[in-house]
């Protein structure tokens, strides 16, 4: 059996991200976790949305689809339904997943398909030059909120737990070690995993900077006796720390969507014979006679 290295997942394309963007580390962490899990680049499909973060599928050497704004998750679920043997990673930004695509995010969590969703959360809209996002704190001043945002920021971690997600984690892009380990755990988790990554926007977000996160984030691994299988503890801890925690917040072992669907083939639909058996065709036709 061949062993993968991070080089296998590099394609030499130079990202169009600003120097210092948090997304570089997310890209590197996905590549490193794939190599650590000894995946073959051909067996990985990275499906992304639109925005700075959406470009990520083009920077990883694997199969990939860069779709449309907010729709990375349904596309990724479609890919998984078509070929259950693929490792499917969906990736996007906070605007992608928590504004235009929030409906898909919630339903993907309750559907619990075996895919990993990585959100690059920079609390701002970068590619459209710095407007407010659903993750911007209230009072945040941007060109679209000159008087300061009067809307509350969404809390993806609490939302994920209440929506039925079976693997809920949060990371900081500067802590690439924890990020890599968490992505590995997310991919290995049988069911839907959401990993929200604080990925600072160095160009437009002058509030939530690397330094700001370093001061405000608490590692769950540093909290004594933290138990990620305890839902109540997870919720209480999030509330106590204003969700500014990193690590696996909550994990529940339950059957994935693919395991629950009656009649769904155990091998990839993509490699099945399309032709109906003539006997079955006759039977179906006869039902209308």
């Amino acid at each position, binding site marked *: 059996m061949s062993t993968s290295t991070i080089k296998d997942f590099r*394609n*030499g*394309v130079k990202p169009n991200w600003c120097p210092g963007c948090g997304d570089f580390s997310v890209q590197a962490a996905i590549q490193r976790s794939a190599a650590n899990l000894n995946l*073959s*680049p*051909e*067996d990985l*499909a990275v*499906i992304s949305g639109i925005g700075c973060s959406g*470009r990520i*599928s*083009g920077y990883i*050497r*694997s*199969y*990939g*689809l*860069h*779709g*449309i704004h907010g*729709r990375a998750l*349904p*596309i*990724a*679920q*479609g*890919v*998984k*339904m*078509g*070929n259950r*043997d*693929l490792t499917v990673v969906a990736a996007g930004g906070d605007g992608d997943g928590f504004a235009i695509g929030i*409906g*898909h995010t*919630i*339903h993907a969590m309750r*559907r619990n398909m075996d895919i990993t969703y990585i959100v690059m959360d920079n609390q701002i809209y970068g590619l459209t030059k710095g407007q407010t996002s659903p993750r911007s704190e209230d009072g945040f001043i941007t060109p679209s909120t000159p008087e300061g945002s009067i809307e509350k920021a969404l809390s993806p971690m609490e939302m994920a737990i209440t929506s039925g997600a079976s693997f809920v984690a949060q990371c900081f892009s500067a802590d690439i070690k924890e990020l890599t380990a968490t992505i590995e755990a997310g991919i290995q988790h049988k069911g839907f995993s959401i990993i929200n990554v604080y990925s600072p926007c160095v160009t437009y977000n002058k509030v939530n900077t690397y330094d700001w996160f370093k001061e405000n984030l608490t590692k769950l691994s540093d909290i004594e006796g933290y138990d990620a299988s305890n839902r109540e503890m997870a919720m209480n801890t999030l509330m106590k720390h204003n969700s500014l925690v990193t690590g696996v917040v909550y994990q529940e072992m339950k059957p994935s969507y693919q395991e629950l*669907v*009656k*009649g*769904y*083939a155990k091998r*990839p*639909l*993509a*490699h*099945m014979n*399309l*032709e*109906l058996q*003539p006997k*079955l*065709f*006759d039977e*179906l*036709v006869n039902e*209308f*006679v």
Partner: protein
Amino acid sequence: MKKDLSWKVGGQQGEGIESTGEILSKTLNRLGFYLYGYRHFSSRIKGGHTNNKIRISTRKVQTVADDLDILLAFDQETIDLNYHELHEKGIIIADTKFKPVKPEDSTVELYPVPFTEIASKLGTSLMKNMVAIGATCAVMDLKIGDFSVVIQEIFGRKGGDMVGKNMEAIQEGYAYMQQSLGEKASALFLAKAENNHKRMFMIGNDAIALGALTAGVRFMPAYPITPASDIMEYLIKKLPRVGGTVIQTEDEIAAVTMAIGTNYAGARSFTASSGPGISLMMEAIGLSGMTETPLVVVDTQRGGPSTGLPTKQEQSDLMAIIYGNHGEIPKVVIAPSTAEEAFYDTIEAFNIADEYQCPVILLSDLQLSLAKQTVETFDFDKVHIRRGKLITSDIEQTEEKDYFKRYEVTEDGISPRVIPGVKGGIHHVTGVEHDETGRPNETAHNRKQQMDKRMRKLSNLTERFPNPITVNVPTKRTNLLLIGFNATRGAIEEAVQRLREEGLNVNHLQIRLIHPFPTAAIKPYIDGADHVLVVESNATGQLANIIKMNVGHVDKIQSMLKYDGDPFQPHYIYDASKELLEHVYINN
């Protein structure tokens, strides 16, 4: 003896109106009659008037009847709302329970029959429908025994003596009605069907769903909407038998993007919706065009705009379906006219989507999708699955880190497609303008090259498509040419037949491939016609405008429009055509 008879049952929604029609038509279909059933229903769950009109004929019929012979009424509202459809020799059979009153201005005969009373005596008033079927048997001179197989199929599983009780109810209804049969009623005896070889009886949506299954669909993500939902409901039951499944998604956007994901992965997937849902899908249909991912979307048109008339017939999505995307993509729109065409065209839609790597819209309309019709059994030997330039097994890599040229510029505009998982095929797929390997590229040269490549794909489609048009008779010289698409076909055919029987030179052309427009096939017929009348169910003449745009003859082409929610009846087209011809050829 009637060779063509129309029967309607009406009552409150939820009262078993549908099952009454179902039992009668299923039995008659097996006796070899040709049937066409059309339901009037409204957007509510229970209550509200509903009716099921069934046309029964010894010859092929593909549309609703002009008038009505027998009206079966479970309430007074049914009489009040429908008696005007009865011709002068028509009859009303009504339950005595509601003390039926015949409208004063009506010459039709009313036969009160104690449906509910007879049924209650036999055990339950629910069987009043069976009594009504018995009464129908007496009027049409049908044999009660012919119903036993269908009754056994429906009630056999319910155990006890349900089959016996229901047959008894039919018998009682028959006996009661026969006693009161007057001269008018006996004139409605139905002629025997000559040919009783096996035929199907189904709605267009059944044909589309079975077509999709036969074409190799293994996954359908969909969001419910009238009149498309039956397609997903059929496949929910059948897909597990072949290892597939249906997901009811959170919305239409999820449905169509999930289908794109599955097609990208290499399995056949599609979705089905109607006007409002299709509008939501437009951005994703563009993604399918730009990424060259095969996609089939079914649009069963209904009354619009907005929520419009969700349970009524209309054909007003045409312009939106062809031109509704932003930007420019290759796209195919196919519009079958009958359930039989719908089956084969659905399979063709999947083949074209794979071969040309672009979105294919299978256009239907409420009448085609929901009218239940007699269909010749589908021929499995005619089914061929074609996947085009699809690579599903490992390929040799030229250089280790090279990306596969997924968007290779080729002469026919179609590039080899490789699915995820295949060794040596790694590439990137994106809705952003990209180079041959899928990497974003905005240079003018690349843009033009890729755009030309995509647009080149469909250059031979109108010639390759099996039946871009259906023509009644292959003569190109005619005084009047009628043109339609989707479910108008049956009504136009009947009108043309009547006009020709009167010696008038009339022809009919039905357009099956809507986009790209089969101009070369259509033009000679329009060139050779003195007058062209485009028959369509919308208020602005969308098809007529498309024809004018592609073929010219702006002055020659007129529209016959209907947008009241009801299907075209043959006499409507006959009358308008006759008027036009008389005005031109007789008065001048």
